[in-house]
């Protein structure tokens, strides 16, 4: 950001972009930080994790929100542009499996059943293929799109192999659309990543920050604020706080 | 211009009229059946009164001419006869306009029916931006005429003295015709629906003398079966073809009034009104 020291407090502009699922956290932190340091302008965008990294590695942003770790080709792009960065864990996302509220026969599904439903080459078509006593209606499947962290995580822990999934389900990058879809479809079964629907949480939300930006006092201060005062905000906007150790590791990286 | 000379010319015209029509000019005509009649007709365009208290009876099977200076309301009057003015915003009419005894501005009257039976040729030629053929065939098509369409088209074009000039261009756009050709096309279009009354607003203004005479012949021919009302600036034309003539003038407030109506010979030779005489003699030719 353009740095101009002024008065007692800090000043300058900090630009962030990236995943729209991390956005609520960054927004909350930026809002609170703004109250503390009114002369620092923090702006945040929602170009998606991929789009965010593209801009980040072009040197257009100071930090990048991500719902998955940075990939090799992205690291390479950053290296080509001489961008070095640090990774911070800021929260966990949830994983929930959901059926339509009007569905009165599914009370719980075992991991094995989920695996049979979702694995590549799955032969499950109707509910009765899962448990014979269930009705013969075919199941309508919903899930996040194949590039999302949630997808990676679900395939890894349920199917047992990352990225392995049957392809014939309705995929959307927008969790809210999935919720709408499942709510509107009696034979729906879907999974997505909102913490407030489940207890089981293990999916990272990350923030990447450019090293040279971190040398600027307002950016450093912002990240410090993110990892300390930001913690309660994570829960407030619907995610799960990362473990204490993760925050501590992060704080250690800030000069 | 010498008035006497002109009066002579008028008289001369009457002498040279086709003999079979001379009988129309006998006083017996007064008893002819009226087909269109206005009673105390007044017309407004918004706040402007264009016609005041026009009373006029158009006889069937005769030609009635409406003459008068520009802007006196001739077009307005003739457009009332088939409710063409309905389309102008702000137009308002008072009084009665009877067609075969029924008020065409009355309740329950369908203007579509009125217009099919009272055809019209407009002052400015207004062909459709379609082919010559389609222009003439349009009326027959919408009115569902039985019979060969191409025959109807050819017949109408021949009667309007246009056939020879356009027979090779029937599929060409009518807007590429000359001014006079467009005017004759509009006449042909009106004839093709065989109306009972034909209104013509200066039908010959864009025509050369040859075509004018042909159209006048046509009018006489049509008048054997139908009623014809023409608006014309050409007083010789009125004298030549009209059985009856109506003279309109503008009042002080520019509203149009009818100052004289009667058999053409009487209007032209022994007008009741001084103004008519002034208009006809003083400006004839």
């Amino acid at each position, binding site marked *: 950001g353009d740095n101009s020291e002024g008065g007692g407090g800090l000043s300058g*502009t900090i*630009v962030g*972009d990236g995943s*729209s699922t991390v*956005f*609520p956290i*960054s*927004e*909350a932190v*930026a*809002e609170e930080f*703004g109250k503390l340091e009114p002369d620092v*302008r*923090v*702006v*945040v*965008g*929602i*170009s998606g994790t991929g*789009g965010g990294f593209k*801009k980040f590695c*072009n040197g*257009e942003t100071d930090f990048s929100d991500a719902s998955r770790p940075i990939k090799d080709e992205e690291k390479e792009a950053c290296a080509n542009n001489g961008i070095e960065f640090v990774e911070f864990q800021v929260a966990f996302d949830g994983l929930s499996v959901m059926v339509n509220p009007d569905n009165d026969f599914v009370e719980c599904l075992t991991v094995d059943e989920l695996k049979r439903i979702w694995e590549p080459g799955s032969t499950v078509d109707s509910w009765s293929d899962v448990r014979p006593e269930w009705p013969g209606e075919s199941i309508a499947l919903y899930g996040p799109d194949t590039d999302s962290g949630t997808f990676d995580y679900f395939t890894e822990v349920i199917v047992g192999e990352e990225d392995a999934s049957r392809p014939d389900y309705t995929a959307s990058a*927008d*969790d*809210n*659309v999935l*919720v709408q879809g499942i709510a509107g479809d009696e034979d729906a079964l879907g999974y997505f990543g*909102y913490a*407030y629907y489940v207890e089981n949480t293990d999916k990272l939300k990350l923030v990447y920050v450019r090293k040279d930006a971190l040398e600027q006092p307002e950016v450093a201060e912002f990240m410090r604020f993110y990892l300390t005062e930001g913690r309660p*905000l994570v829960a*407030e*906007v*619907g995610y799960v706080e990362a473990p204490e150790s993760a925050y501590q590791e992060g704080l250690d990286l800030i000069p | 211009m010498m008035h006497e000379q002109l009066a002579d010319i008028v008289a001369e015209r009457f002498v040279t009229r086709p003999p079979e029509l001379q009988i129309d000019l006998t006083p017996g005509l007064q008893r002819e059946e009226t087909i269109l009649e206005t009673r105390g007709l007044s017309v407004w365009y918004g706040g402007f009164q264009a016609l005041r208290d026009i009373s006029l009876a158009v006889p069937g099977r005769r030609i009635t001419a409406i003459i008068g200076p520009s802007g006196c309301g001739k077009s307005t009057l003739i457009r009332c006869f088939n409710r063409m003015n309905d389309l102008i*915003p702000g137009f308002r009419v008072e009084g009665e306009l009877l067609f075969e005894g029924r008020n065409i501005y009355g309740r329950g009257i*369908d203007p*579509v*029916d009125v217009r*099919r039976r009272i055809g019209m040729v407009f002052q400015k030629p207004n062909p459709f931006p379609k082919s010559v053929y389609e222009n003439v065939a349009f009326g027959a098509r*919408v*009115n*569902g005429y*039985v019979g060969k369409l191409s025959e109807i088209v050819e017949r109408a074009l021949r009667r309007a003295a246009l056939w020879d000039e356009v027979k090779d261009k029937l599929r060409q756009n009518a807007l590429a015709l000359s001014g006079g050709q467009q005017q004759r096309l509009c006449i042909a279009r009106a004839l093709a629906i065989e109306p009972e009354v034909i209104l013509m607003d200066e039908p010959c203004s864009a025509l050369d003398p040859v075509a004018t005479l042909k159209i006048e012949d046509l009018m006489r021919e049509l008048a054997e079966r139908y009623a014809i009302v023409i608006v014309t600036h050409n007083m010789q034309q009125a004298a030549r073809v009209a059985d009856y003539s109506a003279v309109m003038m503008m009042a002080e407030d520019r509203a149009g009034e009818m100052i004289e109506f009667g058999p053409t010979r009487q209007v032209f030779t022994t007008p009741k009104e001084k103004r008519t005489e002034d208009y006809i003699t003083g400006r004839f030719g």
Partner: protein
Amino acid sequence: MTAAEAGFRRRLFLRKATAVGFALLCILATSLGIAALALLLVDITREGVGRVSWDFINSFPSRKPEQAGIKAALWGTIWMMGLTASFAIPIGVGAAVYLEEYAPRNWLTRVIQTNIANLAGVPSIVYGILGLALFVRAMSLERSVLAGSLTMALLVLPIVIIASQEALRAVPNSVREAAYAVGASRWQVVSRQVLPAAFPGILTGIILALSRAIGETAPLIMIGALLFVPFTPSGPLDRFTVLPMQIFNWTSRPQPEFRENAAAGIIVLLIVLLTMNATAVILRNRFQARARQ
């Protein structure tokens, strides 16, 4: 004659019945559009009208739905619409004038013509990709209102051009002839007679184009317009966000209060749209009333 007359009467009855039926059909079609709109508006109003307040309009975004406002987005939208209009209208009308009044009938004209129609069908997101490459990066305008507006202007240009061209085409040739005949130059004919006569149609194009621009989200997300912006733009090079992005984001948040905010945001957006259109509509009605004589 009487048999034919009777046949005609029968047909006339049928024709009139058809005409009445058709009129009803037309009314039905018109009501359909209005009904759809009414439904939407009622739905939105019911949900959002309670949230519309001065505070809502005059606050910056927040994670707390009840404190969040649209100040930055509203001003961003106003800035962007102003800039978009000032690029798209002159260029669009100019292009239409060129194609209708100046262009020779040659291959280049035909290529331009086809090309414009084609651009109308290019998805908005592709314009976003273009805007990012061209304005944000190549011209290094960064993610400014200006870059966003230029992208939007390119996006709506085909609408302005095509609508204006049709409006120009509808001006009768006799008007041009009359103007040329008194010694007007081509530009005088165009600017003083043809354009005024075509004005209502051009305004329709402008209304449709700006309507499209005000509701678009995808290309702005592509070029990287921001979302959390705690200030209003003070110049064309400032960073910005717009109402549809704010609405888009709010609709995809889980808390129901945010959906209420989204509805309130839509209400404000529609009010902006209506004020913008009202000016154009008043002008259009005035000119059309005259042209219809």
